[in-house]
């Protein structure tokens, strides 16, 4: 059994305005997992993710990160969060640039990453010239270009239309299988979490706790045809029921 990548113990967070976002979260994530965090809006999912990334500190409790995680966490926000003044290639170059990698040394990695997200011909484009889905692809490319050991995604596809979202779900799943990284994916969509992940953590409403830790019973390789199967529907039903219980 491999070493735990990320562990949280009795994690709680209250903000200065008195809002309690999280109340006692325990979990362990192993290397290579694709974990979904599912819960209603405002249940503290995003807060949990930001604590994992080290962007905010928990009020009480602890987060333990494996040594291999230092400087190797990628983050994708709800919005694409691109620099509007920089081209697609420059946006993807940003994390490497901040790490002191020269442009020449980074060029091949950037090109490869853009290719694998279907952005090859948009390297010189500016974000405003792209559709919402393409912008999100750039955001994901930027997060993956550093070859992170852990990728954190905070409802990245929530603002996209369903057709684009389905395509991006397919592609993200394929990328995960190809890159062997660990992903924690926050969403409020039962269907999205079941399609994407291998394990779903169902959260209660605020202050959030983990109400259920469910394994997704689906094949490893997944495409959109899976959405029509009985097995997918069964999984969604189970997760929906647990979500309803958690909300009660």
């Amino acid at each position: 059994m491999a070493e735990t990548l990320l562990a949280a113990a009795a994690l709680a967070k209250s903000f200065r305005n008195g809002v309690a976002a999280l109340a006692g979260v325990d979990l362990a994530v192993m290397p290579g997992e694709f974990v979904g965090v599912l819960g209603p809006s405002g249940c503290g999912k995003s807060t949990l993710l930001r604590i994992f990334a080290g962007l905010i500190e928990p009020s009480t409790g602890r987060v333990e990160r494996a040594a291999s995680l230092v400087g190797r966490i990628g983050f994708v926000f709800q919005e694409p969060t691109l620099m509007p003044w920089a081209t697609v290639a420059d946006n993807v170059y940003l994390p490497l640039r901040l790490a002191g990698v020269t442009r020449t040394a980074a060029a091949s990695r950037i090109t490869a990453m853009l290719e694998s997200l279907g952005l090859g011909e948009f390297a010189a484009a500016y974000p405003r010239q792209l559709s919402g889905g393409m912008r999100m692809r750039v955001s994901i490319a930027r997060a993956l270009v550093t070859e992170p050991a852990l990728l954190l995604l905070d409802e990245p596809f929530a603002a996209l239309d369903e057709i684009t979202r389905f395509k991006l779900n397919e592609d993200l799943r394929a990328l995960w299988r190809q890159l062997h990284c660990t992903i924690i994916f926050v969403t409020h969509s039962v269907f999205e979490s079941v399609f994407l992940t291998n394990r779903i953590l169902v959260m209660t409403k605020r202050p959030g706790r983990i109400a259920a830790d469910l394994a997704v019973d689906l094949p490893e390789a997944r495409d959109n045809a899976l959405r029509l199967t009985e097995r997918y529907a069964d999984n969604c039903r189970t997760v929906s029921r647990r979500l309803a219980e958690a909300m009660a």
Partner: protein
Amino acid sequence: MNGVYWFWRLAAALLVGVGAAFLFEWHVDVPAYFLSRFWRIAAPVLVGVAVLLGWQAAVWFSGVPAYVLPGPWLIAKTLLHDGPSLLGALLVTLRITFAALALAIVVGGALAILFSLSRLLEVSLFPYAVILQVTPVIAIAPLIIIWVNDVFAALLVCATIVAFFPIVANTTLGLNSADRNLNDLFHLYGASRWQTLRLLRLPSALPLFLAGVRISGGLALIGAVVAEFVAGTGGAETGLASRIIEAGYRLEIPRMFAALFLLSLTGIAIFIVLSRLSRLLLRHWHESALEPSD
């Protein structure tokens, strides 16, 4: 000569003109393209020509002497005749204006960057920048002219005081309004303060900085002229303000108008150049600089 009588005639002519414009727009179906491209230039030109013609006619028929109100024709002739001597003065004014704008950009930009790096500094100094801004320059110009021996330097200081505030205020706001999530991202990737400033906060501030520069360009000109008014006509090289004062003393009102015309033209030119510059620098990404068809 009855001034009031002529005033009412002019007002009536203006009303008729506005009425005709309304009737034209209501009854003639102008294609949208025509309206947007052609009329955006033609309409103000037509208004200008109409006003000039009305002015000229009023001066002719009323017999107002040129030392009270010269007609545009006489002003144009004076401009042509006195042009060379006025241009020399304009050059002096322009030198002060651009030096003040440059200084305002450097001082204002540097202050804004300092403010963005240290909240304490911003809180301590910003009120004084406001005080400097709200105090009329005409009230402090005599002091500065006493304190600073060199006339050019004194005028430069006055014009800079007038011009630097919009740049400080706008740039500070811009530096502090970088996207929160991008800020987090920079933090996540371990960016240094300098990297965050250069790669995130400065580009974020650029649109507001440029808007500030555009306002400051006009203010620098106003500051240069106002300060020269206070300084008087002493000194070897004097600007347009001195020409205006002289012309006033000698009742050379057409010359006064000619100098005034040059000043307005300069202000417009500065505004247009700075607007173009702003569009050029922001053309790839900022909403303000995008073509309507984009």
